[in-house]
């Protein structure tokens, strides 16, 4: 019942790899957020000086 054709299995595996790759973008997204927050902290320090 659950035996896939080779093409189905390859397509499914490709889709899994693509979604796993999309998850790896979480790191640059976190870094971007961190850079913006750091920039605001720097601006604050300049403002308070």
């Amino acid at each position, binding site marked *: 019942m659950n035996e*896939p054709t080779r093409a189905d299995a390859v397509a499914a595996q490709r*889709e899994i790899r693509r979604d796993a790759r999309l998850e790896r973008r*979480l790191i640059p*997204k976190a870094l971007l*957020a961190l850079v913006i*927050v750091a920039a605001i902290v720097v601006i604050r320090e300049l*403002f308070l000086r």
Partner: protein
Amino acid sequence: MSVEWLVVLDRVLVVVFIVFVALGTVPVLATAFQFAVLPLHSVINHYKRAAYYRPNVAVIVPAWNEGLVIGASIDRLVQLDYPQDRLRVYVVDDASTDDTPDVVRAKALEHPGQVFHLRRDQGGEGKAHTLNHGISLVLAEPWAEAILIMDADVIFAFDSLRKMTRHLADPKVGAVTAYIAEGSRDRNFLTRFIAIEYVMAQLASRRTQNVLGAIACLAGGAQLHSRENLEAIGGRIPTGTLAEDTMATFESQLRGRRMVFEPHALVLAEEPRTIDALWKQRLRWARGNVQVTKHYRRLWFRPSRVHRLGSASFGLIWFSILLLPVLMTLAAIGLLALLLLHSDLAEFVFRLMWISAAIVFLFSVIFAVQLDPRTGRRSWREAILFQGVGSLILMVVAVFPGLVEQLVLAPFGLELTELGRVGWMASMYLWGPVSMLGAWLARLVERTPVGWLLARVLLYIVGYGSLLCAITVDSYVKEWRHADASWSKTEKVGRVLG
């Protein structure tokens, strides 16, 4: 009382009130923790164990007077990119009095052997009972290998089911849930707030829960169970609380099965468009969470080898939401008392608290809008104003001391008197509880002729977060008074864009 004793009393009170403020900062720390763990989902996820898997899926759709939405939902289900001979749809009609039976029967004739109409002549017992009627019939036959529980109004993206089933290829996984996104065609300010909330609560928080190995709740609108998992929890969705989906999630994990949140399986849902409708829906959820907390009182902060629900990290996340209004109020009391005892110390503690809140808020909002760029583009104002204009002012006051006075008072040659300064500080310290009252007021004024505009303005000032806190307070009160807990359905009229 001697001077020495007064000094000791003063120090004790200062420590107590600083602890109050520190407790008020716990939700900020919990959010920081969640967003710090979130990037780990790039490496700690379930994709390595996912594989091609297309089991026979029985879809159970509970329906009570869903005539306006059920047809579109069924149409989408039979169009899913999934082998149609492995998909059956069972609509459990909970004694509907509208045209739901006619619509479902017509769909059953259109798709013989695939769409089934299950009628309950005595209804009104709640969603869990309705679901259980369908589940018991499905489990009585050996055909179904997985059971998808969904709401009648949700629209699945074409690839969403197959993206969920691939995780069930791992026998350790008991259930999978999807990303429920707000999907109305005609959005208003409230649905845009909800859209951002769902990004934060699902795409961010549930990914973190994937990493931590404990899921708080499989979304009731899209939860796919393996047959073995449903049978292990007794072949039925637990009844007895208003949070049947959370109970099912907990029961599954207590038996050692893993739950997975699949962020790339998209399901669109229609959400409330008025504060009153949202209040009723979320009150049901919040009361359910209070009931679940009591029901599993021996589970919290007690680590187990079988599940991760008792871990400190999961307890921190759970209770920082459940107790948020209490912690906010404690912080306000602490700051106000410190203001009376040592105003300089109060100001220092206040700034520390709100600077940390500002950093975490900024980081989480910038991160979150990137998680679902489409929602981010549509709802960026609501993302910025999620905590309200009032909280943003407090953040600016804390981060840039003196700026507000310079911008507001200095141009008019004015200066704050000592009494005025104390009053201004006291009003800032009390903002948490005041904002909850503001949210409650927004619900009240919404019913008046010009209420729609007033409620909208009020909500932008106090923030959507305060609205959720106010609803949580209402849930405490209703639970304490054992108020009527009969099921009240959120009205859906078919606004979801397919």
